[in-house]
């Protein structure tokens, strides 16, 4: 009973506070909802903003007194700052977001190092040097309808980050003065990372900020590319570190992973990248006669052999299945061979044929067994068919014999 009364009282209190807030005059929005262009801000729009939801008002950033309806609302006496110049945006946002004591009351787990990180970024450094074109907080996070990054409508939600970055970085005209490529977004859209993020909905898949950082956005240098990739691709990075390619790439000034896999347009790795064919990336450096050329050919041959063997086993098991045979156990075992193939494709990053052979051999052992089980299932199918045929012959034989027997009885009568 008391619990119900308490809940009721809390509900009434919330409604009262909400109504009181709704009735508070806001001369800023009253006027700005009637303005056009950049100055247009509606109550509905601002109500979506995380700052409004946390109780902040227009005056929190722009100063002034929204409760006044005359010119005094925008007076110096009321602390009116007006439009915040781009150059002043990071500092203004940082005045709250870099203050742990202030931020703790809203979200204790929110980081408060964004502004200091921004100052170390290319954006921040250029901005400090007087460049007004580079990104400031509002370019990425939006303004007046700013939502938390976990909101799918936020410009900085993982699904939207690449589009947000591309607004500047894919605009050749806007980026012309910086003399950097503008094809990153177009390339990224063709990549396996984009496919994982957007098509498969894997929010842990990388987008721009995963590799470049967000507030401290800086392109990773040649020496640190492998470190960036290794945050997810741990095994490949460990094998690469211990491989002869590590020293060879370093001496040639080549970045680790991207030399073979490219950067923004990383496509799903295929076995064709390995070996000595025209599509191979190995032949970009290795030529016929050298040890690397031979190792590339060997590794490709082994992997291709295991894949062919898996396909062969899979085909015979499918044939047995479509004939009504129970082959779920060998199917399960064949998955182990696929595991071995996946491992072999990772082991390729040792760039030596011997370790790859160990993985491939363990897979081939399984495919030999499962193929045998598939053959056994087909033999069992044939045995059953033969048995069925023989029983049908026996039945027909009995029917014919009965008919002849009846005829003979009739004849004798």
């Amino acid at each position, binding site marked *: 009973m008391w619990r119900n009364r308490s809940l009721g009282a809390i509900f009434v209190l919330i409604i009262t506070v909400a109504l009181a807030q709704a009735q508070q005059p806001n001369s800023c929005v009253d006027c700005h909802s009637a303005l056009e262009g950049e100055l247009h801000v509606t109550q509905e729009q601002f109500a979506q903003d995380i700052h409004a939801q946390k109780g902040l008002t227009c005056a929190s950033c722009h100063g002034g007194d929204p409760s006044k309806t005359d010119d005094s609302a925008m007076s110096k006496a009321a602390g009116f700052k007006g439009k915040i110049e781009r150059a002043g945006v990071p500092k203004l946002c940082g005045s709250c977001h870099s203050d742990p004591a202030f931020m703790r009351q809203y979200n204790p787990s929110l980081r408060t190092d964004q502004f200091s990180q921004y100052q170390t970024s290319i954006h921040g450094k250029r901005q400090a040097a007087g460049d007004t074109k580079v990104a400031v907080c509002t370019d990425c996070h939006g303004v007046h309808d700013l939502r938390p990054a976990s909101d799918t409508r936020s410009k900085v939600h993982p699904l939207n980050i690449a589009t947000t970055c591309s607004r500047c970085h894919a605009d050749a005209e806007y980026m012309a003065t910086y003399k950097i490529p503008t094809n990153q977004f177009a390339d990224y859209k063709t990549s396996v990372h984009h496919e994982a993020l957007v098509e*498969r909905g894997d929010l*842990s898949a990388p987008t721009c900020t995963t590799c470049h950082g967000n507030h401290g956005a800086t392109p990773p240098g040649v020496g640190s590319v492998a470190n960036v990739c290794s945050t997810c*691709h741990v095994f490949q990075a460990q094998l690469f570190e211990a491989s002869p390619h590590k020293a060879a790439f370093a001496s040639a000034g080549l970045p680790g992973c991207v030399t073979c896999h490219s950067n923004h347009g990383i496509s799903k790795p295929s076995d064709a990248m390995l070996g000595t064919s025209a599509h191979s990336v190995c032949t970009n450096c290795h030529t016929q006669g050298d040890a690397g050329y031979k190792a590339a050919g060997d590794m490709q041959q082994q992997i291709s052999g295991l894949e062919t063997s898996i396909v062969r086993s899979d085909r015979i098991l499918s044939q047995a299945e479509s004939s009504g045979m129970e082959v*779920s156990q060998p199917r399960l075992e064949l998955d182990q061979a696929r595991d071995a193939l996946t491992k072999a494709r990772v082991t390729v990053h040792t760039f030596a044929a011997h370790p790859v052979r160990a993985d491939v051999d363990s897979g081939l052992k399984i495919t030999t067994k499962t193929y045998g089980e598939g053959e056994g299932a087909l033999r069992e199918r044939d045995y059953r068919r033969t048995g069925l045929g023989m029983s049908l012959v*026996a039945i027909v034989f*009995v029917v014919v014999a*009965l008919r002849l*027997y009846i005829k003979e009885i009739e004849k004798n009568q």
Partner: protein
Amino acid sequence: MGMLLGGGLFASALSFFYPVLRYLVPPRLTDMGGDTVVAGKVGELRPNSGKIFRFGSRPGLLMLGSDGQYRALSATCTHLSCTVQYRGDLRQVWCACHNGMYDLAGRNLSGPPPRPLEQYDVHVRGDEIIVSRRREA
């Protein structure tokens, strides 16, 4: 004629009863239906170890923790469908293909796995460890 008829009837009877006899031979599988399976016997696992069992057409992972508690998860990695295994030294579930790590509740901790592993219920009935798929509430 009588012999022919008798032989024919005998062959027919054989063809009827042979499949019945084959049916009566106990099947090798321990699958108790789509949602439940006997994953092992009590005493089969040492504490802090795990084993792969067959759950329908997919592998499952049965673990016996150091606390003596049985746990079971889907053994199919949510990254590229490799079979995961229990790592006693780490007390975690590990995917050997790309170094994906999960905790004992199946939550993806590190590496490329994008989602947790499916959790199964475990019951001990007599000396059998029964694993069942969780039903939606």
